C-alpha cells in the first residue's frame, strides 16, 4: 500500500495546486487495485489555499476521491478567523480537524500519520527560513515540541536563513522568542532523558556572520549562537538524511510504502527536490542544487525536478562575470549532471505555459509531463529498500 503526504504551511500558487491536483488524480487512478491513500496537512497560510475561490476547481478534483483526507490545523484556523462550518459544507468526509486548544495538536497528528510506517525513534525538522519574518519558525518549534511530547528524539537541521533560529540573544517584543523556545525545548527533552540535536549548515552560518574564526572541530559553537546549536559542514546534516527517520519541512511531501518487499534491509530514503524559484534573486535555487549535490555525493538516490519558476534556470545562456561572486547556475547544473546518484528533470508544462524551452547545451536534463513525474515519484520508493522517499520544495 502506498501513502502520499503533502504538508503546506504557505499559500501555494495556482500553478502548483493545478499540477498537484493532476498528480493526486493520477496517483489514485493508476493501479486502482493497489490500495492508496493521500493525506494533505494544511497549517498557517496553507489553509488559505482551501478558501480561495480560484482554487475550488482543483480541490473539487482532489476531494472527489474518498482516498484523500485532509488534516486542518484548528489552532491556526482560529488565529486566521477561518470558520470550520463553511468548509464542512462541501468536503465534510475528507476533513479531520485537530484540537483547537492545542497548538502542537496538528503536529502530533502529522507525527502519528507519517511515523506509523516508518516507526523510527528520531524525528527531524529542516528549516530554511528565519524567525520573525516567517511564522513557519513557530511551526518548526511546535513540531519539535510535539515530537518530545510523543517520546521521539527531535532533531533540527537549519539551512539557508534557517540558521538564524539559533542566533543568541534574540529579543522579539511581539513574537515567540525562537531562540529561548529552542533552549526550553532542550531542557524539556533533557528532563525526559531525550536527546535534542540542533545542526546548522556552516556555509550558510559563515555567510551570515556566525563563524568569526576557523572551525577546528566538526561541530562549531560560539557566543553568537544559543547553546547546543551547532554549525557544521552540510555533509554532517546529509549524514542524517542517510538515516530512515522522518524529516519534515514547512512545505514538503513524502511517499511511503506501508508494506515494503524487504524489511530489515533498508537503504537511505531517496529524495526528490523540486526547484521552483528563479535562479538568482534568492538563495533557494543555489541552496536546493547544493543540497541535491551533497545528497548524491552521499550515494542517496537524488532526483531534481525544475518546475514552476524553477525553469528559468534552464533558459537562455547565463553570463556571470567573476566580480558578481555568484555561481553560474547553468554551469552548476551542467557540472553536477554527471553525478552517479543524481538525475535532472524539467517539468514540460511549466516551460510550455511560459513559452520557453531548455537551452540546448543543458543536455543532461530530461523533459517530463505529469505521467512521468508520477512514475519518477513512484519509482523512488519502488526501486529502493526504504519505507519512504522524501520530497522537498526549494
Amino acid at each position, binding site marked *: 500500500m502506498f501513502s502520499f503526504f503533502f504538508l503546506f504551511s504557505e499559500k501555494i500558487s495556482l500553478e502548483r495546486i493545478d499540477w498537484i491536483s493532476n498528480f493526486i488524480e493520477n496517483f489514485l487512478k493508476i493501479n486502482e487495485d493497489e490500495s492508496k491513500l493521500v493525506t494533505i496537512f494544511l497549517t498557517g497560510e496553507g489553509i488559505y489555499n482551501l478558501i480561495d475561490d480560484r482554487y475550488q476547481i482543483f480541490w473539487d478534483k482532489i476531494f472527489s476521491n474518498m482516498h484523500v483526507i485532509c488534516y486542518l490545523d484548528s489552532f491556526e484556523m482560529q488565529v486566521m478567523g477561518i470558520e470550520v462550518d463553511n468548509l464542512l459544507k462541501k468536503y465534510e468526509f475528507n476533513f479531520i480537524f485537530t484540537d483547537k486548544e492545542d497548538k502542537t495538536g496538528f503536529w502530533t497528528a502529522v507525527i502519528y500519520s507519517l511515523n506509523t510506517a516508518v516507526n523510527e525513534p528520531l524525528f527531524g525538522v529542516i528549516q530554511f527560513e528565519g524567525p520573525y519574518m516567517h511564522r513557519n519558525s513557530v511551526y518548526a518549534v511546535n513540531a519539535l515540541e510535539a515530537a518530545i511530547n510523543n517520546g521521539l528524539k527531535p532533531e533540527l537541521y537549519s539551512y539557508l536563513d534557517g540558521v538564524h533560529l539559533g542566533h543568541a540573544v534574540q529579543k522579539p517584543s511581539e513574537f515567540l522568542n525562537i531562540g529561548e523556545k529552542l533552549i526550553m525545548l532542550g531542557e524539556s527533552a533533557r528532563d525526559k532523558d531525550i536527546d535534542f540535536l540542533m545542526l546548522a*549548515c*556552516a*556555509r550558510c552560518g*559563515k555567510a551570515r556572520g556566525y563563524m568569526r574564526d576557523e*572551525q577546528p572541530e566538526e561541530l562549531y559553537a560560539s557566543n553568537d549562537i544559543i547553546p547546543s546549536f551547532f554549525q557544521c*559542514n*552540510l*555533509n554532517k546534516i546529509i549524514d542524517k538524511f542517510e538515516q530512515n527517520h522522518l524529516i519534515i519541512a514547512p512545505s514538503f511531501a513524502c511517499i511511503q510504502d506501508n508494506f515494503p518487499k524487504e524489511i530489515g534491509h533498508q537503504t537511505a530514503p531517496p529524495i526528490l527536490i523540486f526547484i521552483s524559484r528563479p535562479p538568482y534573486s534568492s538563495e533557494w535555487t543555489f541552496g536546493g542544487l*547544493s543540497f541535491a*549535490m*551533497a545528497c548524491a*555525493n552521499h550515494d542517496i538516490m537524488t532526483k531534481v525536478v525544475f518546475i514552476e519558476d524553477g525553469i528559468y534556470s534552464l533558459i537562455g545562456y547565463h553570463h556571470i562575470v567573476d566580480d558578481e561572486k555568484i*555561481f*553560474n547556475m547553468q*554551469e*552548476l547544473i*551542467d*557540472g*553536477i*549532471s*554527471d*553525478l*552517479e546518484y543524481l538525475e535532472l528533470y524539467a517539468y514540460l508544462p511549466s516551460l510550455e505555459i511560459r513559452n520557453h524551452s531548455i537551452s540546448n547545451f543543458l543536455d543532461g536534463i530530461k523533459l517530463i509531463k505529469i505521467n512521468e513525474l508520477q512514475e519518477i515519484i513512484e519509482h523512488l520508493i519502488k526501486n529502493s529498500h526504504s519505507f519512504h522517499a522524501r520530497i522537498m520544495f526549494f
Partner: protein
Amino acid sequence: MDRVKIPDYTELTCTNLMIKLKIITKKMIQAEQVEFYSTREQFDNIKKPFSKNHYSLLGNKTEENKYHVIIKKN
C-alpha cells in the same frame, strides 16, 4: 618560464569548493588536470566523489592544515 600560481581554495566552504570543482572538471578534457590548495576538511570532502570512475585524485600535505591537491580526468 613562470609557473602558473596554484590557486588557494582554503577559504571556500566545502560545499562551494565541491561546486567549483564540479564546474571545472566537467569542462576538462581527458588527461587534463586541476591543482589547488585545500584544507584537510575540504580534502576529506572531495576524496570520495573524485575517486570514482572518471577521475584520479592525489593529495599531499604541505602544512598542518593545507593540502596540495591534483585531480586528473582519466
